[in-house]
């Protein structure tokens, strides 16, 4: 009898969740119809969605699979550069501005890069060494882009035709779509066999391998999917900036902000990065206006405080408060 009640409650909960998700999607999806899209709040939401995409991508690799990657900014930058180089050199002969083909390509290139550096790094290195390795690979890529000559145009970067810009509307839609896509991808992966394998190798690699899980294959899969999402996000940001340069898109902020979001929200949970993004984006965008020059100092201090007093994140707090999981 108890079992059937439990399953009933479970089913009920699931319907509630589905309704909540549908409501949230509808509210955010229809927001541009009754709100000014060029307002600051819309910009804030755009940044939120970008952060959600990046954080979910990092969450998949760092949270679920437990491989701490310090190369996010390289994948983000590579995505932005792929878009910029193809557009600037007129390679694919399509319409370029928000071209789906271009955005997918901007995801595939970082994914290939991830596989190339992932094969030697993930097969041989564990833990901290993997983190250093990804950081070094990102630095090598940055130097290559800086010294790329005519192809990447060095430190000055590539300027895209800004006359295409009409309003924030497409940016809002696409970023929302990306955030939903990233969340859905991570959700369905973690609920599948792949997710089970990733969790197993996060817990104990040796044991997972002895149970017949092909560790390297799953690690690389997660790494490549994460890089794909970051690359697409970089492409969107290139459309937003119309100016792709190493100092902008390969900035270390693109590495640390997703990590901060994941930890603040709750690493290895699906909801954590979303909550974290809204908070962190709020602090970063609004502090930029009100505090101004000192704001990186504020954000630095904030990272320290969060980690010191809330190392398990907001989702962890919830678990502490409620006795039942």
């Amino acid at each position, binding site marked *: 009898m108890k079992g059937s009640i439990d399953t009933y409650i479970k089913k009920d909960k699931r319907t509630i969740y589905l309704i909540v998700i549908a409501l949230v999607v509808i509210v955010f999806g229809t927001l541009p119809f009754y709100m000014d899209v060029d307002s600051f709040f819309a910009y804030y939401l755009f940044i939120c969605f970008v952060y959600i995409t990046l954080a979910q991508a990092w969450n998949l690799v760092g949270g679920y699979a437990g491989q701490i990657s310090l190369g996010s900014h390289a994948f983000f930058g590579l995505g932005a550069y792929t878009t910029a180089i193809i557009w600037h050199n007129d390679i694919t002969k399509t319409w370029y501005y928000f071209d789906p083909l271009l955005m997918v390509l901007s995801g595939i290139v970082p994914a290939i890069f991830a596989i190339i550096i992932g094969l030697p790094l993930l097969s041989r*290195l564990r833990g901290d060494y993997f983190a250093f390795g990804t950081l070094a690979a990102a630095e090598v890529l940055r130097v290559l882009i800086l010294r790329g000559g005519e192809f990447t145009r060095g430190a000055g970067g590539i300027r895209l035709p800004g006359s295409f810009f009409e309003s924030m509307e497409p940016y809002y839609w696409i970023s929302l779509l990306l955030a939903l896509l990233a969340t859905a991808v991570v959700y369905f992966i973690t609920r599948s066999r792949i997710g089970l394998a990733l969790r197993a190798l996060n817990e104990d690699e040796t044991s997972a391998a002895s149970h017949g899980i092909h560790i390297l294959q799953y690690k690389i899969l997660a790494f490549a999917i994460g890089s794909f999402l970051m690359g697409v996000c970089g492409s969107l940001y290139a459309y937003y900036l119309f100016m792709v340069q190493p100092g902008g898109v390969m900035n270390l902020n693109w590495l640390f902000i997703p990590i901060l979001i994941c930890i603040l929200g709750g690493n290895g949970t699906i909801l954590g990065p979303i909550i974290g993004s809204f908070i962190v984006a709020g602090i970063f965008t609004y502090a930029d206006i009100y505090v101004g020059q000192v704001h990186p100092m504020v954000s630095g201090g904030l990272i320290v405080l969060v980690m010191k007093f809330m190392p398990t994140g907001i989702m962890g707090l919830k678990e502490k408060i409620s006795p039942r999981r």
Partner: protein
Amino acid sequence: MAEWKLLAQVFVNGVLFGSMYGIAAIGLSLIFGTMRIVFIAQGSVIVLFAYFCFWLFHLLGIDPYLSLIPIIIVALMFGLGFYYGLFKEAAALQDRIGSLLIAVGLMFFLENFMTVVWTPNPRAVVTSYGFYKLSLFGINFTLVRVIGLVMAVLATTAVATFLKKTLIGIAVRATSEDVEASTMMGINPNRVNSVTFAIGIGLAAIAGTTMATTYSFDPVYGFDFAIKALVALTLGGLGRVGGALLGGIILGLIESLGAYYVGTDWAQGIVFAIFLLALTFRPYGLFGGGGQKT
């Protein structure tokens, strides 16, 4: 002949420069060894001490090498403060992402703090003897750089002796071998960790003073420096004091030879490419294997 001399000069400069990476790497190595903390703020702390040295020199007119004494005392206190104030919980949990992020936050904070206080313009401590050169076989050795190398070697020896001979040094080594076992042997992890942190930051003070007298520095130089110290540390093998210094010197050599043969623009890329190769083929340091604790 001239070609040979130039090459020797490049070589010597590489060694002298690399010794500074070496000191920073030893500090990182100690902190990583006992607490599993990747203290990426080390570079920014070094730059901070370079600014202290700069202030003492410019405002009070104290010779940089004399100012080393107060700076090291301040540094030891900073180290204790960092440990008890920031890293104690993370170290107890061996929580690497947590401690890494605290270090990153500290780095952001220090960088911007220094930018506000000292402006982003590069600074340098220029002493009357700063340009004095020694000549040996036609190769120039700048005095301040030689002093830097000597200080690096002295500091390394001091730390190595401390770890070998004193009781607390032995406790530090035991903790870096196996935390749980050492706790069971009655070693207080807090005490060991705080001492280690103090020594690590003290080494940063030495590196900072050396940097202040030798090069110009600016607030954001720290991150670059920390990454290179990490590279030096990995080249030398984690947890080895002598290895870290040697790794730093090798890194300095790679950098200066790379700058000479390929160009300064590419030196950075070459350093990281070699680092990647070393990680792939000799993951646990260039000097021998040894078990790696994961």
